[in-house]
């Protein structure tokens, strides 16, 4: 209910995205790369849903809710959409990684790179 200094939840979201950037830049294992993208999407989702928080707010659902302010509904809807989109992207990426592994016998992005130039 009090003002949290330094926008802590936003900072957490940014750091989560930062860690995932580290994974995407430095890790060569394709599964780890996918995990990095999943973490990045979690960071963005956390950011979005934190944007909609209102101090002391209730859920924006009128069924048996106590009186008082409500948190913003739109960021929650955006987050829901974004989560489903990320599930879809991950499913497709994992499918392709299965094929890459079947073709090259390796999950290392350096070893499996056949396209050059």
């Amino acid at each position, binding site marked *: 209910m009090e003002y949290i200094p330094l926008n802590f939840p936003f900072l957490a979201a940014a750091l989560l995205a930062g860690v995932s950037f580290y994974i995407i830049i430095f890790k060569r294992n394709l599964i780890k790369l996918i995990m990095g993208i999943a973490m990045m999407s979690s960071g963005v989702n956390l950011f979005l849903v934190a944007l909609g928080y209102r101090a002391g707010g209730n859920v924006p659902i*009128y*069924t*048996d809710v*106590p009186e008082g302010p409500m948190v913003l509904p739109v960021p929650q809807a955006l987050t829901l959409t974004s989560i489903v989109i990320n599930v879809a992207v991950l*499913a497709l990426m994992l499918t392709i990684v299965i094929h890459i592994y079947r073709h090259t016998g390796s999950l290392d992005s350096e070893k499996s790179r056949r396209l050059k130039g």
Partner: protein
Amino acid sequence: MLSKIVRTVANQLIVFILVFGLYVIAHGHLTPGGGFQGGAVIASGVVMLLVAFGSKELRKSLRERVLTIMESTGALIFAALAFAGLGTVFFYNFLVGTPVFGRIPPTGPGPGDFWTGGFVPLMNFAVGLKVVAGLSAAVLALALFASGEEMEE
């Protein structure tokens, strides 16, 4: 395929998971949840069956073709509900004020009435159908491929 204990328990549990999933879908316009969430609950039940019985056994009762038809049907119902408002505007909530799901709840906090929400409950069902079929089909296909089974077209 896992041991008999796991299979028996999974067989019993799937009923509860189905009921809970349907509850979440059906009350999406009143309580937290909705088509996506309830669909994910039921799809996780299907994944439990997949783990307990294995993909070959599960495939005997759940064909990919059936799942694909279910998914397309769900998507078509959703799109059709959106198209039905085209007399006014695409996505116009044409059911508000009609006897079907058309009641308007009193403004402010309240106990909630099932017959409200316009086309939202129907869309929840369409999306639920789609999500159940879609997620199950994707997981089943991955499991079948991993175990070297042939997929049907």
